[in-house]
């Protein structure tokens, strides 16, 4: 059963005078199934488009264009996937996306935690200025920077390279800000104690702080991986060689094509989108397990 009922029940007999208490307990008990009903309805609302996409990937052309729309394919087919694999070099694009996303994620985990830690826990001259810069970087509307960035990267010879796809995103301001917020919950006493023991700053960061912020790191991993995986405009502009295309760029060659938006192309687009989304959902499903009591239990005891 839930922790809640387990906690309140021993208390109740000890407190017979309060008339409100038994009533509260009853609602407490009755609430759990109700919560599941609410959560399930919400789940349906939240996940419906995803289900639609997943189911549509297996539909025939007739089902895709049926009116009124059908949810469950009347005949399941893999045609959308086979024609997709036929027309696009999916393994190559998948590999490109993966390389870029992993490099971006790893560098963000490292660099953003470093600066996040410094901003949250190290008192240094100019800290507020660095933080202001991070915030400013966060607020710059990115769309318009694309053109000058392209010219710059071209000058550096980074067009059509993995470096060109990774470096501009290797230390995102969002990540720094996120880590700073989470690092604030790390108790200062721990750091001070370690310093008194003569531990070096890198040691404190790497061995004490990092293990304490695992939920934050899991969050950052999810966000960065997702961001990189779905990133579209920059890889589109920064790659001219199809061998360096990432998945979304490759898929975009179909989307909004006047010859394809209507009818059959939709199925291929859905199949492609499903293939793009699944790895991210898998990463999320694995990492969300790390949302467990981290700082509190480890930090205080």
């Amino acid at each position, binding site marked *: 059963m839930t922790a809640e009922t387990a906690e309140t029940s021993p208390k109740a007999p000890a407190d017979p005078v309060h008339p409100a208490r038994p009533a509260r307990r009853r609602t407490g008990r009755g609430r759990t199934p109700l919560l599941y009903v609410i959560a399930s309805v919400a789940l349906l609302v939240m996940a419906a488009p995803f289900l639609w996409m997943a189911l549509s990937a297996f539909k025939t052309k007739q089902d895709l264009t049926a009116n009124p729309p059908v949810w469950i394919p009347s005949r399941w087919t893999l045609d959308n996937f086979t024609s997709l694999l036929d027309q696009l070099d999916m393994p190559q694009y998948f590999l490109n996306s993966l390389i870029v996303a992993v490099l971006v994620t790893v560098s963000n985990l490292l660099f953003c935690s470093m600066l996040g830690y410094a901003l949250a826990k190290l008192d240094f001259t100019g800290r507020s200025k660095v933080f202001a810069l991070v915030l400013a970087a966060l607020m710059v509307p990115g769309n318009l920077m694309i053109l000058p960035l392209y010219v710059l990267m071209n000058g550096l010879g980074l067009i059509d390279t993995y470096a060109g796809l990774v470096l501009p995103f290797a230390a995102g301001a969002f990540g720094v800000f996120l880590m700073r917020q989470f690092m604030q919950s790390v108790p200062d006493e721990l750091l001070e104690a370690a310093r008194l023991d003569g531990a070096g700053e890198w040691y404190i960061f790497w061995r004490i702080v990092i293990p304490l912020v695992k939920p934050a790191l899991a969050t950052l991993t999810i966000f960065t991986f997702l961001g990189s995986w779905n990133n579209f405009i920059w890889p*589109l502009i920064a790659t001219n060689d199809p061998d360096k295309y990432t998945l979304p760029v490759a898929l975009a060659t179909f989307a909004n094509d006047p*010859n394809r938006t209507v*009818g059959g192309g939709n199925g291929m687009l859905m199949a492609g989108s499903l293939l793009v989304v699944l790895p991210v959902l898998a990463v999320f499903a694995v990492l969300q397990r790390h949302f467990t009591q981290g700082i509190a239990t480890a930090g205080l005891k």
Partner: protein
Amino acid sequence: MNRATATGSIALTLASALTLTACGGSGGAGVAADAKQTLTVWAMGTEGEKLGDVAEEYEKTHSNLTVKVTPIGWDVAHQKLVAAAAAGKLPDVVQMGGSYLGEFADMGVLEPVDSKTIHETDYFPAAWQQGSYDGKTYGAPWYVDTRVLFYRTDLAKKAGIEKAPATMADLQSAAEAYQKKAGSKWGLSIQPGGLDTVQSFYQFLYSAGGAIIDDDGKAAVNSAAAVKALENYGSYFDKGLSEKSVRPGYDVTKDFNTGAVPMFFGGPWLTNLIDENYPDLKDKWAVAPVPADAASVSMAGGSSLAISADSDHKAAAKELVAYLTGEKGQTDWFERTNDLPANTAAWTSGDLADDPTMQVWRQQMDTARATPSQPKLTEITSKVDTAIESVTQGKSSAKEALDKAQSEIEGLVQ
């Protein structure tokens, strides 16, 4: 700091900003056509993918060449082309949609076509005009596109319509008949507003004898003919014959299939699409030329192939373009894509010569009017979009809306 130095310093910074590598110098003589080399080609959407197959075939007969085709999505192509132009990184050969050509020609990044291998008389006049800007031709016509009337023949019988509407007056009475007698929800599908509404208005505008920019290159969107056309267009919404709100990405073929929409103006690719997606609809629909007003004039669209001014492989690129836009290449391309050939010689054999449906396209193409090649075309047409929307939504009269558009467009025409 006076104005000149201010301008100078800003410009200098920008220049260093934007020309880190942009000035590579335009390739000079470049590489000979038969030397070993790699040609890069960018093409959009389906064309981009299908062109890859053609490139493989082409390599077989040109063993010195590697032809690398990069497909680009339509909705992002413009941004990518602009970035490439800014960095001097355009490919040797690039597909140019009609609406881009004026802009890129004006930037000076395109090489004029070689008049020795590409001849104006081989192509539909509208196709040729689309590749031209300011008296020079930069794009070799590759494929064309126009709009004709798609209508439901089975419902027409029910509605007592005996033949395809031949005039604009017929069109409206047909729409009414479909709605009243055949139970169609709407009479005709035309776009009420939003981006590129102008594409569905062109049929009305051109047929009435109007234009956005007249033959002398002047803005003419508030001419009497244009006002009459827009009044006619707007009347479909006033009378409830056309839907007042249509979402972006609306798929008209779905409603055509159910009969909710019995008539619409559509492009050539829809023929196959309807056949494939709605096999039950076979023999229940047909295409007809745009109903005549002063004349029957449709819009011409399509793409041309241009060579980058910076290319080092111009000689080989010219040969490739000449092949793709020549009779043989055009026939082959039609078989692969069903894109309508721009080269009229390709229309003399096979389906293109015999099929009655194809003849409707051919006939419409002969008189179709090209969108003007203007560097600010997108902006110009967006003003017309706004004018049309204000009329279909009943916010303004056709005359007022077009007068306003006219004054805005006058400042944009070059």
